[in-house]
């Protein structure tokens, strides 16, 4: 009998080009996604060395970080414009397919990959972007790389990679009403810390994961990097195949059935071993809000901000104090007392159609609090179109949200969507680092539903009560 394997080991073994003692494995890359921020120096490296892109057919580029969400045709900042133009020139010169900012396929790289069916189970997928872990939701081994590695993949379609340790992140039971995939991943990071995944590739398993939709699975896998894991994935199942069926780059007809049979065989075998296992009870997870300056600094909406005096270790105490000071919060303050002035619904974590639908359900019939500036930024042009077809844009607009064009936007404020110094934002993005949404900005990570409720209330509220009573 064969030794049972987990999906990470299976996908890895299928991609080893070369193996020798004392070296990492040389791994073949099936899909290389490229964006404007982390690629210019890589293309320049190719040019300087007279090298070509080895497999333009396995390379796909988009522009997302610098694009304006007010007008797709205008980029005011000349340096942003130059970066955008450089990508276009590089794609032309090296023969790489590009969804330009006016192209109907354009959007955030981690939203359009799955949408177009480029993302498929069992593929190795890389991008010069740490949230590449998103694509793991399909059972792909997908991870972020630096620009030198981008150049390496462009030139060779391979990467030298030491086999990762594997971890089973087991989520038992089911999430309660009003508790989302975002709350689950935040709770996991809150419980085990921002570096428990370092050196590992994680597989999410368990009943709660099986019942998530593809878009919810993407939210979970997206934030694997915030736990330190370069990649996090989920074994493919019927939910995966159903999502992929009829997508543009997915095989059709007979070929689809053959692909499904192959994909099914990738799922982790019964009894497979991992280097580590952690477990969490889904039913105990409550809606989460981050209070500090990394995603592990999060608490349930029903809880209070921690007190550094309750910490024994000096550097831990210091970390909490510094975070509270930056965030302008008092130790022991209930998080539901915290007032906000900005709401951002968007980012590669939470900008897909179902995210917007759920936020719209909360907002329907309500008004955004007058002191709050709230924006919705769909993840892609196609998400935007689909949402408009359903009238979701109207619900947001009537409530007082700004309805914008697609892009990375206020997640990292590389374009002109910026939270001002001292501004406080309820954000559906993935990082609450100092200055992430603008110099001096204060970010609280939440689910789309919690962000919508906060927009109405002007402070954090428990969305479970909000929707149950329809009042604040």
């Amino acid at each position, binding site marked *: 009998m064969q030794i049972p394997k987990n999906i990470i080991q299976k996908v890895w073994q299928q991609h080893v*080009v*070369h193996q020798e003692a*004392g070296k*990492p494995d*040389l791994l*073949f890359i099936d899909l290389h996604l490229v964006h404007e*921020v*982390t690629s*210019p120096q890589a293309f*320049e*490296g190719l040019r300087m*060395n007279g*090298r070509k892109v*080895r*497999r333009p057919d396995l390379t796909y580029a988009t522009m997302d*970080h*610098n694009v304006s969400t007010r007008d797709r045709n205008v980029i005011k*900042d000349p*340096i942003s414009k*130059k*970066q955008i133009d*450089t990508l276009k020139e590089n794609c032309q010169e090296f023969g790489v397919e590009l969804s330009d900012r006016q192209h109907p396929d354009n959007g955030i790289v981690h939203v359009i990959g799955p949408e177009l069916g480029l993302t498929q189970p069992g593929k190795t997928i890389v991008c*010069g*972007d*740490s949230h590449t872990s998103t694509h793991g939701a399909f059972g792909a081994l997908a991870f*972020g*790389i*630096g*620009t*030198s*590695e981008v150049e*390496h993949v462009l*030139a*060779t379609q*391979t990467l*030298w990679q*030491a086999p990762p340790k594997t971890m089973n992140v087991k989520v038992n039971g089911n999430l309660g009403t009003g508790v989302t995939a975002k709350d689950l991943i935040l709770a996991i990071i809150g419980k085990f810390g*921002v*570096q428990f995944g*370092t*050196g590992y590739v994680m597989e999410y398993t368990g009943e709660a994961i099986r019942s998530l939709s593809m878009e919810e699975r993407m939210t979970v896998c997206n934030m694997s*990097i*915030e736990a*330190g894991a*370069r990649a996090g994935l989920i074994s493919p199942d019927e939910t995966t195949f159903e999502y992929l069926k009829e997508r543009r780059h997915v095989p059709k007809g007979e070929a689809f059935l053959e692909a499904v049979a192959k994909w099914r065989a990738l799922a982790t075998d019964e009894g497979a071993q991992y280097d580590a296992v952690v477990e969490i009870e889904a039913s105990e997870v409550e809606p989460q809000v981050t209070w500090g300056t*990394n995603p592990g600094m999060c608490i349930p909406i029903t809880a209070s901000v921690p007190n550094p005096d309750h910490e024994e270790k000096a*550097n831990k105490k210091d*970390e909490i104090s*510094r975070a509270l000071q930056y965030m302008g919060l008092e130790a022991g303050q209930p998080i539901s007392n915290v007032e906000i002035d900005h709401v951002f619904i968007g980012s590669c974590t939470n900008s897909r159609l179902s995210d917007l639908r759920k936020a719209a359900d909360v907002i329907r019939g309500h008004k955004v609090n007058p002191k709050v500036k709230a924006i919705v930024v769909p993840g892609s042009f196609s998400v935007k179109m689909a949402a408009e077809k359903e009238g979701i844009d109207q619900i947001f607009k009537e409530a007082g949200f700004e309805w914008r064009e697609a892009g990375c936007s206020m997640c*990292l*404020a*590389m374009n002109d969507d910026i939270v001002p*110094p001292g501004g406080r934002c309820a954000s559906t993005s993935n*990082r609450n*680092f*100092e*200055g*992430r949404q603008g*110099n*001096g900005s204060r970010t609280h990570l939440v689910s789309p539903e919690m962000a919508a409720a906060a927009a109405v209330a002007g402070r954090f509220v428990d969305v479970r009560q909000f929707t149950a009573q329809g009042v604040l």
Partner: protein
Amino acid sequence: MEPLRIHTGVVCPLNRNNVDTDQIIPKQFLKRIERSGFGQFLFYHWRFDDDGNLREDFSMNHRKYQGASILVAGENFGCGSSREHAPWAIQDFGFKVVIAQSYADIFKNNCVKNGILTIQASEEQVQSIMRKAENEEYTLTVNLEDQVVTDNQGLEFTFDIAPYPKEMLLNGWDEIGVTLNYEDKIAAYELAHK
């Protein structure tokens, strides 16, 4: 890439955990299309106030750390974004070696590609180096060949590094050049997986 074998330099302490790459190089500086010139933006919002003046209370700005080439930090250094602009900034500023309790994977990888050695040390070792560097102008010698760190006060500890990154750093190799020697293997793989 410049080879790195033995390096002696002044230590600059950064006594913080979870230093993310957004702090190392804030996003507004990621728009450049060049690989050079990022050092001036290193730890920008920690080094400078809103008016662009040096913050006196930030350790790195102290005179005794001018010209430092070894950066020492706590846990999970370089977490967050995959931006290689972070190691570019660290290197351009003048650092050749980082010593920390632990690193984020992508950051660590990016450092090797740029000839920066990342040494993982215990909390005790890091804190002891940190204390000395805070109190005096403190110099360390890092010998990559023998994988040992020493000072002139009797400190000596060894560190682990995998054979491959060690070889890359010692020789300052261009990795793509190395990989292209495996062209036949890559082509064979492609043929078998058409």
